[in-house]
């Protein structure tokens, strides 16, 4: 048994696993609104709700990739709209650092997405999920990361 069964799409074939870390007040509510508006979007994303994007530690993202995520999405309130006034500003700073670090390490940035989605932007949420899913689907499974643990250490190979 493994988490997040593969092929969760209707068409069969490869379906990416995408993890989303979202804030409770804006993006989570925006995603709820997409639901109350009965919109349709790709089913590949699994959301973890946090109070604020400021709570998101880069470790979450690393761990998601370690656990087989093909892509990670981080989303919260637009600047200025933070429920906690400045949490998303802190998050943005951290992301600027982390994003460059990941980029320099050679993580394909098409697998790591940052976004602002407000509680009223259900359409933006839907478009975002669809675009991110399609993009990652094209890239295929993140084998580089998934394969890391079982690769033998260099000296012993």
């Amino acid at each position, binding site marked *: *048994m*493994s*988490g997040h069964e593969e092929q969760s799409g209707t068409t069969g074939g490869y379906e990416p696993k995408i993890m989303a870390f979202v804030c409770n007040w804006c993006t989570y509510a925006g995603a709820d609104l997409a639901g109350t508006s009965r919109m349709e979007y790709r089913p590949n994303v699994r959301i973890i709700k946090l109070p604020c994007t400021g709570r998101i530690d880069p470790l979450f993202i690393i761990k998601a990739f370690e*656990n087989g995520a093909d892509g990670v999405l981080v989303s919260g309130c637009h600047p200025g709209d933070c429920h906690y006034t400045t949490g998303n500003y802190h998050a943005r700073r951290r992301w600027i650092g982390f994003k460059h670090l990941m980029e320099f390490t050679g993580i394909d940035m098409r697998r790591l997405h940052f976004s602002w989605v407000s509680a009223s932007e259900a359409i933006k949420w839907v478009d975002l999920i669809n675009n991110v899913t399609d993009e990652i689907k094209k890239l295929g499974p993140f084998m580089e990361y998934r394969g890391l643990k079982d690769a033998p*250490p*260099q*000296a*012993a*190979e």
Partner: protein
Amino acid sequence: MKEKILRRSDIGRLIDSVGTKGGAFVAPALVARQVVFKAIKSADEVSFDYILARNSYKEFVFPQTEVVADFTFTGNKVDLRGREVEARDTVVFGARPCEATSLSALRAVFTWDFVDEFYTKREDTLVVMTVGCTKADEACFCTTVELSPESKSGSDIYLRETETGDYTVEALTDRGKAFVELHAGCFEEGDAKLKPLVRPEVIKGIDLGKIQSRLAQRENYADPVWGELTRKCIGCGACTYVCPTCHCFDITDEGTAFEAERRKNWDSCQYESFTLHASGHNPRDFQFKRWRNRFMCKFTYYPNKFSSKGCVGCGRCVRVCPVRLDITEAMEELSK
């Protein structure tokens, strides 16, 4: 007298021969500007110009990380399955006499009450080809711990460099003899002019007997000299990771909510968390206590318990130390 010779030009053939019989050939090779023991595929990779490899070859019998069991969760049951180690015949070429001595120390630890097959099965299929040293550096101190470039303990085959860059071959153990037999085509008979061995000077003022007796006295345990000797130690543990006789490990579980594996990972007594109790109490709460432990491990605990050598004088810890903490300086101090 004719001697058995391994020509440098035949090492490639030996590697192939080991390879075709399913074995692994470990030899010093240049990786990231350092000579390290590495499983290699061709003679081109072998480095011949080195004093000691940066790492000890212990990682081929005692890997830095290995899975010892797998488990899966179903319902309220945990299905735990132990792993069997499948040891591959491995030959280590280019070990030094000092470090070859370390295997008996490791074996003693891994077999004294519980026989750790993850170790023994690997060691049982290991052939150690030692090469007598023709170079040494200021960190080498094998002679100070009563070893020398001629020491043969722990080696299955003892090699000496010749003036022409070849090796004379002396099979010491049954396993060594069988190895030479098995790959007979790679060896030949002939005359050889040996390169002289280089013996590091015995460090004056170090007396192993005195160290032993001093460590045996309880009051010396609390001697402030420990604190002074090790004040600069930053507790990085690099010394323990390169040491051929250090053997401490930790068992850890890694995995997800669905499945996991149990791993055996190297650990180091130099870490603060090594002895940290769940209560928050730490019996080795200062770095000098951790360093003292390692020293006593080398010079009292293991020699007394197993009559094995705790320190083989390879000097790796001295070379790797970022703050240049030299164990021989402590040995000297404790010989007083």
